């Protein structure tokens, strides 16, 4: 059809590359998203404490990671972290190898990038917290920490869920840049396959479809979560 040749898909080697690529992409996305969300919450908590030096530190972090290309961040993480000289000995082969693999570097860099964006999202969520809610929590004897986890986070995360969905889908797509530092995820194997088969267009179309499917599942899941968490009597509930 249209002169496209997908006969290479029958090759078990390519099939297993694709499967491994998808699994690694999912792992990378899941790990860095989780850490990014945690960074976002803690950063927003830090900002809400209104301590001068902590504010400055968090702001600096956000500015650096939000205003530079994620690809540059990833290369930067890869080349700095791998030259730190952190090494470990492989228990099987007995060879020296860097403690932080390319996968770990990609994970760290993506977590920080997503985290910087998530801080902004959670901050806006916390800022819309009515003072009355905070006051009620205090009057019931909640400590700052307990108030944050038990009252403010559950309410604020509902408020910032739409922007969090954007951040997570973006982060998912940005995982493809890990191919540049040799992390064997979907994009990396795509390159391997078309270098092998010279079927560049066919491979790209397939990879495109896989990303569309994966990211659609993610955003569908997030919209279901949003609907599930909608507060009865508030917001866009029917």
């Amino acid at each position, binding site marked *: 059809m249209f002169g496209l040749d997908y006969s290479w898909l029958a090759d078990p080697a390519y099939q297993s590359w694709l499967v491994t690529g998808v699994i690694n992409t999912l792992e990378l996305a899941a790990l860095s998203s989780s850490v990014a969300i945690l960074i976002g919450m803690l950063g927003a908590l830090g900002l809400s404490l209104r301590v001068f030096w902590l504010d400055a530190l968090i702001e600096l972090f956000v500015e650096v990671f939000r205003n530079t290309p994620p690809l540059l961040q990833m290369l930067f993480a890869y080349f700095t972290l791998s030259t730190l000289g952190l090494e470990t000995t492989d228990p099987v082969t007995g060879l020296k190898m860097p403690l932080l693999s390319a996968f770990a570097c990609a994970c760290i860099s993506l977590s920080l990038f997503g985290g910087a964006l998530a801080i902004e999202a959670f901050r806006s969520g916390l800022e819309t917290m009515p003072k009355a*809610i905070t006051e009620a*929590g205090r009057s*019931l004897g909640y400590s700052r920490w307990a108030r944050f986890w038990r009252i403010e986070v559950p309410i604020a995360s509902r408020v910032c869920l739409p922007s969090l969905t954007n951040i997570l889908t973006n982060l998912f797509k940005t995982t493809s840049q890990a191919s540049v530092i040799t992390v064997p995820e979907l994009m990396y194997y795509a390159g391997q396959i078309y270098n092998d088969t010279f079927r560049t267009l066919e491979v790209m179309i397939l990879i495109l479809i896989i990303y569309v499917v994966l990211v659609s599942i993610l955003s569908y899941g997030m919209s279901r979560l949003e609907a599930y968490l909608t507060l009865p009597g508030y917001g866009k509930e029917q």
Partner: protein
Amino acid sequence: MKRSEALIEIDNIHKSFGNFEVLKGISLSVNEGEAVCIIGPSGSGKSTVLRCINGLLPIDEGYIRVGKHRVHELRSEKEMRPLRHQVSMVFQQYNLFPHKTALENIMMAPIQVLGHERAEVEDRARKLLEKVRLGNKADSYPGMLSGGQQQRVAIARALAMQPEIILFDEVTAALDPETVKEVLLTIRELVDDGLTCILVTHEMKFAREVADRVCFTDRGLIVENAPPAELFDTPQDPRTREFLGQVL
């Protein structure tokens, strides 16, 4: 150290917001089981007094004692915890947690803050919902309840902490006229039960019926402090007379 036998003792407290001095030396004592209403024009510092009593606002100067707690000396939220256990507060805007059901709103703090056992707290919470006549609304979220119903849940939430004192901050000011009655009825029952209450209110008729004592505040001072019949019928201070002339 107590200066008197009163349950709550406030002596010459001052509080400023920026350059504006809201409280200019308020003194008040409240005995156990007493219901005291604070009335006065807006901006006269009524709500600020309540927030100082349970430590939500630190005072600049003065002495506040609630039971054995010297509130003006408490610094951290942790030090405040026993005080918050003893003193509950009900707010003008109800301030329920929107992500929890009515029952959960009532159960949260006793379990999470006081560390009471869940089953016992649930039993207590259900009884309190019955008491405020909302036994059938246990699983409703605040957003599904009317203002009056939310306010009664908020009262049940305050009671679930098993406080000795409840502070009511203009609790009917945001309500529709027809729901004001049900909330006032609930409060009246608490006063009749002998709970110590301080109420900031604009409901003069209610203050007259329910209070043991009424304080009139104006511009950061308690201008007049007397039993309701006396204060409403034979006000001594010209400012009290002027205010009552406007609202009655």
